[in-house]
């Protein structure tokens, strides 16, 4: 187990390093002169020079990279061109906002996806099953930036149940979380369904049934607990889609999180801020994935046992 943890930490660190390097390169991908793009073709030379100095673009690239890395270690991500505030502060402010959204979306995803998958598996072949599969296929195919406006049209304008956008009051989380969560629940429910089906046909389940144990006990104790493993795997994989979707959902619903900040930064050509946002989101993703790996390793007895003794 310890060796497992250790190797995970090492690989996570390598990945984070790689991510930082890639993000560092972003600003150098800008076609033409990055400073000119950021300030507009009509900026005064003295302003351009000042920005070049501030961003260290005059230095040779390895020096820039080293400066960038050092800054990261001190949690200094630079300053936003547009608002002149330290990028780290901006990210710190918005992180809990995005976290709120992802948390509630996850709740929706599990709350919808899990029961749907169970229903489908237990009632395999019946109309319930087809219904559940249908919903899940729909969820995978519908673009969330379309679903969002439709939800606003239906629930905010039509029925007036929820506020339109922004983050004010408890009701305002609902539409964004539901839109994002719905898409995820689709994938989750399919995974739950297939994983349950696999287990339900396993021998030890048949044995349990043969022994006369009640059906619900069979499902609950024996099946579901073992189904958790692949479900958590999927959750981990889907986390990526969730975080990526957050960017779009925050934009559609004017949810003031890191995703919205990223898009605004791109539109304002505030590239240092874009770098900061992408870095923060990706590193968070790596950390969470590593955490999931730990949970996975703890749950999977094969891994747990193989390292001991």
């Amino acid at each position: 187990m310890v060796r497992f943890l250790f190797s995970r930490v090492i690989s996570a660190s390598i990945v984070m390093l790689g991510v930082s390097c890639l993000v560092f390169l972003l600003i150098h991908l800008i076609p033409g002169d990055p400073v000119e793009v950021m300030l507009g073709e009509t900026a005064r030379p003295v302003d351009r020079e000042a920005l070049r100095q501030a961003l260290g673009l005059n230095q040779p690239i390895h020096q820039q990279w080293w400066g960038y890395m050092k800054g990261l270690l001190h949690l200094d991500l630079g300053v936003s061109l547009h608002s002149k505030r330290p990028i780290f502060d901006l990210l710190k402010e918005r992180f809990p906002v995005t976290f709120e959204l992802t948390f509630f979306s996850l709740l929706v995803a599990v709350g919808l996806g899990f029961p749907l998958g169970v229903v489908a598996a237990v009632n395999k072949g019946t109309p319930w099953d087809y219904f559940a599969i249908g919903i899940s296929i729909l969820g995978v195919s519908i673009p969330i930036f379309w679903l969002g406006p439709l939800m606003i049209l239906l629930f905010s304008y039509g029925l007036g149940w929820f506020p339109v956008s922004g983050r004010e009051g408890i009701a305002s989380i609902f539409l964004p979380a539901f839109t994002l969560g719905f898409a995820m629940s689709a994938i989750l429910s399919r995974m739950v369904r297939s994983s349950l089906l696999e287990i339900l046909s396993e021998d030890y389940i048949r044995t349990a049934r043969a022994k006369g144990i009640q059906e619900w006990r069979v499902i609950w104790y024996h099946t579901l607990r073992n189904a958790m493993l692949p479900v958590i795997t999927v959750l981990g994989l889907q986390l990526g889609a969730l975080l990526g979707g957050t960017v779009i959902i925050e934009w559609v619903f004017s949810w003031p999180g890191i995703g919205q900040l990223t898009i605004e930064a791109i539109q304002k050509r505030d590239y240092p801020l874009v770098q900061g946002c992408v870095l923060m989101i990706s590193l968070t993703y790596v950390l969470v994935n590593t955490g999931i790996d730990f949970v996975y390793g703890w749950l999977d007895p094969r891994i747990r046992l193989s390292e001991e003794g």
Partner: protein
Amino acid sequence: MGFWVPITVFLFWVILGLGSPFLNLDPEQMDLSKILNPPSLGFWLGYDDLGRSIADRLMAGATTSLVVSISVVGITLMIGTFVGTLSGYWGGWVDHGMVRLMDIFLAFPGLLLAIAMAGVLGPGIENVVMALCVVGWVGFARLSRAQVISIKQREHVQAALAIGLGRTQIILKHLLPLTLAPLIVEATFSLAGVVIAEASLSFLGLGVQPPDPSWGSMIRDGAQYMLVAPHMVIFPGIAVMLVVLAVNLLGDRFRDWLDVKSG
């Protein structure tokens, strides 16, 4: 319902996408007197906020989505398979390093890296293709590498090696055909993903620029008028959904068929 409906939708999309530049369309023709007209008998999908025919723009948008998705899938398939196969075959440090590299690219959730790249490279269809390629090669690389690794051990490859067939021969004649099938499945799902990704980027304003039509930017423009002219936002959304649905279903069918074959 499984096969015929999705394949019809898919073919319809492909034909429309390939053919629309040759039809006598004018997706930019503005007739101010028709601004925001809802669908009616003569003008089946209505007009947008500039008096342009939504039907024409929808069809031109099909070309955009087709061109981008085929390009991206084609390029990433080739690059990813090439890299993944070589890596799996050679093993050792090269393979190790490649796996790390793939992990790094996979560390960017969802469309984030594509959004950042498109944002940095600037608007335009070529940059969209480039950004999506940078993000998309990993899937194919991972898949082909896994395939190669598992096949490498198999007996007939050992046998071929024993006989003394050259490495290239082995790769081409033995490894590739077996990896091809799952790759096609992956390519199908990837196609669906790219259609949504292109639409998402255009929706955010990062992709195809106006006045060039793209379903994603049509949805963005349409959302502004959804209170007064919902047809503007509904039709492009349906288009994206139908195409993605069809391609996903086809991918599902492929995969089921493959499972049956290899099972």
